[in-house]
């Protein structure tokens, strides 16, 4: 019986959309179902990564369902034999294909044994590879002169030439025999003597001061030039603050610290200086790129972490 056969007169014809028509509904349902199945089947068997029995057109081979791309194969053949693909022999192509299949098998084996989880070389290569992909856009962008200038203006402190100081850090040590008040008195007297031209050795002996030995070079008191950053790292904070404002030949006022009262003798001082944009434009260029790479890395890690299931035991 045809599905398009008429219903009883009371029900109307199939195309009479003012009435309910059971057969029409069934026909439309069937058409919809068949169309849906067809679309799903088409998508299922043509989507990338679909498990298929035949080799898809874009692949030259499938190894455990992973394709070796035809375009990669052609490039590899041309590269290996340095001739155009059309000029290679079947044996040459077969050799290349065998090599590529072998490589794919080894890669799959590496993944199977979870090589990235324990081989540091594989891990670092993977990290480097991912970073390279992340940074591709950053590396492609060349900052303009205006962008460099803006960055320089916003980060002027980064482009200061570090100062250099050659100094002696003397200390009137506090001890049970010399309380703080006595140490301060000796330091004040030493400062006055030094400012009047007394020699360092005499002052050290006369007022019982000693080198703090904060600045050492191979175990000996460093009497050479020291960059500001090194002096900052070694000297007491208050002592460094007093030292950095001195000029060559100046003697600091006494500075109280945990181990006693210090006096700084600035033998030579080259103060920090702001470097001009023209001088540092290459560094600015590098810093702009590095900052952009850092931002990309941080943002990507933030996103990846948000997707990752990370469980941390109490460290």
């Amino acid at each position, binding site marked *: 019986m045809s599905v398009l056969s008429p219903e009883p007169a009371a029900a109307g*014809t199939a195309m009479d959309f003012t009435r309910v028509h059971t057969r029409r509904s069934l026909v439309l349902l069937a058409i919809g179902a068949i*169309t849906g199945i067809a679309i799903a089947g088409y998508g299922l068997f043509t989507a990338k990564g679909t498990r298929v029995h035949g080799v898809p057109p874009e692949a030259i081979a499938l190894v455990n369902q992973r394709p070796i791309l035809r375009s990669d194969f052609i490039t590899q053949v041309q590269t290996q034999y340095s001739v*155009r693909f059309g000029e290679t022999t079947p044996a040459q192509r077969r050799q290349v294909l065998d090599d590529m299949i072998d490589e794919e098998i080894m890669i799959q084996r590496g993944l199977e044994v979870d090589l990235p989880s324990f081989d540091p070389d594989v891990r670092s290569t993977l990290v480097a590879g991912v970073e390279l992909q*992340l940074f591709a856009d950053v590396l492609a962008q*060349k900052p303009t002169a205006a962008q460099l200038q803006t960055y320089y203006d916003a980060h002027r402190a980064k482009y200061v030439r570090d100062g250099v100081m050659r100094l002696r850090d003397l200390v009137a040590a506090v001890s049970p025999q010399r309380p703080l008040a006595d140490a301060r008195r000796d330091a004040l007297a030493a400062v006055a003597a030094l400012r009047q031209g007394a020699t360092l050795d005499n002052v050290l002996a006369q007022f019982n001061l000693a080198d703090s030995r904060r600045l050492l070079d191979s175990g000996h008191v460093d009497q050479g030039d020291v960059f500001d950053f090194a002096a900052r790292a070694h000297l007491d904070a208050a002592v460094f603050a007093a030292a950095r404002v001195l000029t060559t030949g100046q003697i600091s006022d006494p500075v109280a610290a945990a181990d006693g009262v210090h006096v700084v003798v600035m033998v030579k001082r080259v103060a920090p200086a702001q470097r001009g944009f023209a001088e540092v434009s290459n560094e600015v260029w590098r810093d702009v790129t590095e900052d952009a790479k850092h931002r990309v890395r941080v943002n990507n890690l933030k996103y990846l972490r948000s997707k990752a299931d990370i469980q941390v035991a109490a460290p």
Partner: protein
Amino acid sequence: MTPLRLSRPRTRVAALGVVLCAAAALIWQLHVRQIEAALVRADPDQAVAAPTLVNFALDRAPALYRRHCASCHGRDLRGNHTLGTPDLSDAIWLFGLGDLPDIENTLDYGIRSGHPKSHNITDMPGFGRIGQLSAAEIQDVVEYVYAFSHADANPEAVRRGRPLFMDKGSCYDCHGQDATGNVDYGSPDLTGHSGWLYGGDRQTLFQSVYDGRHGLCPAWITQLSAAQIRELAIFLYITARRAPHAPTGAAGAT
């Protein structure tokens, strides 16, 4: 409102029409898939020699080009000096010799795209930025390069620039001693006979040498199907071979 009523014969005709249309669309899709598969499976030489495949590709590629490539290379394929994108309407290629596999490889993986298989072994360094050449030396190198295509170059600067090109700057290493470039590295011809990516005036050349260049082309393998990439490759291949002074024959520009 008058209810919709159709007579039985008209109903049958309509239903038959729908079925026939669906069948025709399905058959057409299968046909297209078949040609796409043949296009992708064909060896490069066969793909560009078979009229059916070439015509199929040329019918479909322009729309793909407009959608994915024209924003950088221009609707007329002539490139863009501001972006440094090359002219695709000529027979001059940065990477490879213009054979179908060369074009296809570039489309697949791009240039410095971040894809590990992209063309990324070289990069134009910023010789001024890295301090390998001073600004004055770069001006001399620029004058040396400028002299290949201009008669008004300063001969003194050209004389000074040549050893910088050949020695301290190491320019010859990528661009060749005759400055005609190297398609293995993607280093362009500097003699001016192949046009310029960013422009051949002194100021642009100076900027190229001082700041370096880092041209980029995306890897399309993740966005286009193998058939679409081959269609585009054939389109570019055929366009190049129709260009003036293009190599002849279907075997490729070797």
